[in-house]
């Protein structure tokens, strides 16, 4: 999940205010400090509500209402129309509302840089569908890597994440092939660290650097907000 204001991956707690998801940092910048406070903070600072009002007023003075009438010179679309509809009217709008468009892209995707193919050039892809064998016909006990247990949660009454948890098994004994094909987002920090060593030993430096970047990204992300 990403912060809908800055687009950063949410690694710590999730703060939802009026249906919008924020990271700690953005919630603080938006003046929603009260949502970040632990009960003990209030005990320690009885004037916390006053601080919060003052903080909100400070934030309001920094808001920029000047751009709401910004208009595209080619198609006449205004910034307000774009913000309401999420659509632009012409190519020129991408220049006119550049900052707002980038912000919108970040909100949705956490990225605003193009990495796809060029016009009239085929994408270099070898993705193909491999039929997955049916359990009943071919599966042997213990082979299936994904299992959702319908009975466990009913029996224990635990949280939904525990019930029907989708778990990867047999992670031990990572190989270069497995690491190269793996979705790095699915590997644990420990596996990434092990993977870096394995890749470095095998002189697969490109793979090692991918793993390192993933691990670094997580650690950096963990410090945000």
């Amino acid at each position, binding site marked *: 999940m990403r912060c809908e204001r800055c687009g950063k991956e949410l690694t710590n707690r999730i703060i939802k205010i009026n249906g919008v998801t924020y990271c700690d940092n953005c919630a603080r910048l938006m003046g929603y400090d009260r949502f970040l406070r632990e009960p003990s903070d209030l005990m320690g600072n009885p004037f916390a509500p006053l601080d919060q009002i003052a903080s909100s007023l400070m934030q309001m003075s920094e808001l920029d209402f000047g751009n709401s009438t910004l208009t595209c010179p080619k198609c006449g679309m205004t910034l307000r129309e774009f913000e309401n509809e999420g659509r632009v009217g012409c190519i020129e709008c991408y220049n006119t509302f550049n900052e707002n468009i980038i912000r919108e892209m970040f909100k949705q995707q956490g990225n605003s840089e*193009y990495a796809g*193919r060029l016009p009239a050039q085929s994408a270099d892809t070898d993705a*193909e569908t491999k039929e997955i064998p*049916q359990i009943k016909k071919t599966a042997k006990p213990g082979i299936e890597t994904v299992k959702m247990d319908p009975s466990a949660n009913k029996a224990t009454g635990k949280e939904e994440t525990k019930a*029907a948890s989708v778990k990867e098994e047999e992670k031990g004994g990572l190989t270069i092939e497995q690491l190269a094909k793996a979705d790095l987002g699915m590997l644990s920090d420990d596996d990434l660290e092990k993977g870096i060593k394995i890749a470095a030993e095998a002189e697969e430096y490109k793979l090692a650097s991918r793993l390192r970047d993933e691990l670094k990204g997580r650690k950096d992300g963990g410090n945000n907000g």
Partner: protein
Amino acid sequence: MAEWYTNEGKDNDVVLSTKACIVRNIKGYNFMPRLDDKECQSLLETVDNAVDKSIYNGGNAADFDNETVLRLTRLQILGREASQLVEPERKAFYYNDDASLSITVGCGEHLTVKAMKQGHDIGVYKTAEKEALNLESKLDIAFSENYGFLTSNVRLAGTGLKILYTVSLPAISKTEGGIAALTQRVSQYEWTIYPFADRGEIADSDVYIIASVNTLGVTEDELLKRGEMLITDVIKAERACREEIATSKKEQSADIYGRSYGTLRYAGMISRSEALQALGWIRLYHDYDDSGEIKLSWNTLDKITMDILWEPGAPSRKSSQSAASQKYRANGIRNILKGDE
């Protein structure tokens, strides 16, 4: 030629269809919300000249009769509410013989190339890309080095590509916390999952759409590979849940399976919701029925499911709940099942 969704697809016990949609806009024209009628006619003519008529049928939507509109809805080229046919003179639809490949003009973006296959088949991307490349070579497409392919909806800017898997998940749905756990899993891949329902509709089945989100910061290849890893997980998870339910509650499952088939096979009137629920139970227990009394192929099951899902008109509409439509639906199902026996 047979309609695309009646063909046999891979993993079609779980995946009803795989779709790839690529959107493009043409330089020199405003995007659809700011395109006046005169410009729009010029756009339609420009695209019409670029479309290969030896492959595609169709044309300007204003020329479609009611029967064609219903057929194109069932073939999943038009939305079920046929809302895309508001202002039909500003839209055009081109489709090949089995309707597995289509080019839509004027619905949201200037061009939408859509390739569809029954079951699990990521080959749809290459099919859609081939047509997109063809149009890109003939038309002056809006493209920027920073943002990629430019679109009216800025959330599509970039690759302009969406991959959608339509999946039937009766067992995960019946597993407590199953959909929540799956949703979490899907978001880890930066994809999304939502119930099969149009805006304002009530979801009345255990059919879901699993769709890609990112059009920026990711190559087409990465997106497709990620999607394949995700859908593989989903298929395995659904099958594992089916096995769990079908074996741990064998008698109850077998009973509901038989009753569900009986209802579909012999009902004189059936609501959309009842039919979809019955189909879900049949899907869940289908591979575990040892009696051999019910003869029903996955292909038939998928065809009935998609026929009902893509009935013109939303489930909240009174017309789809009327006695006449319930009779019509039941009759259609009976005939298909009779043919499969």
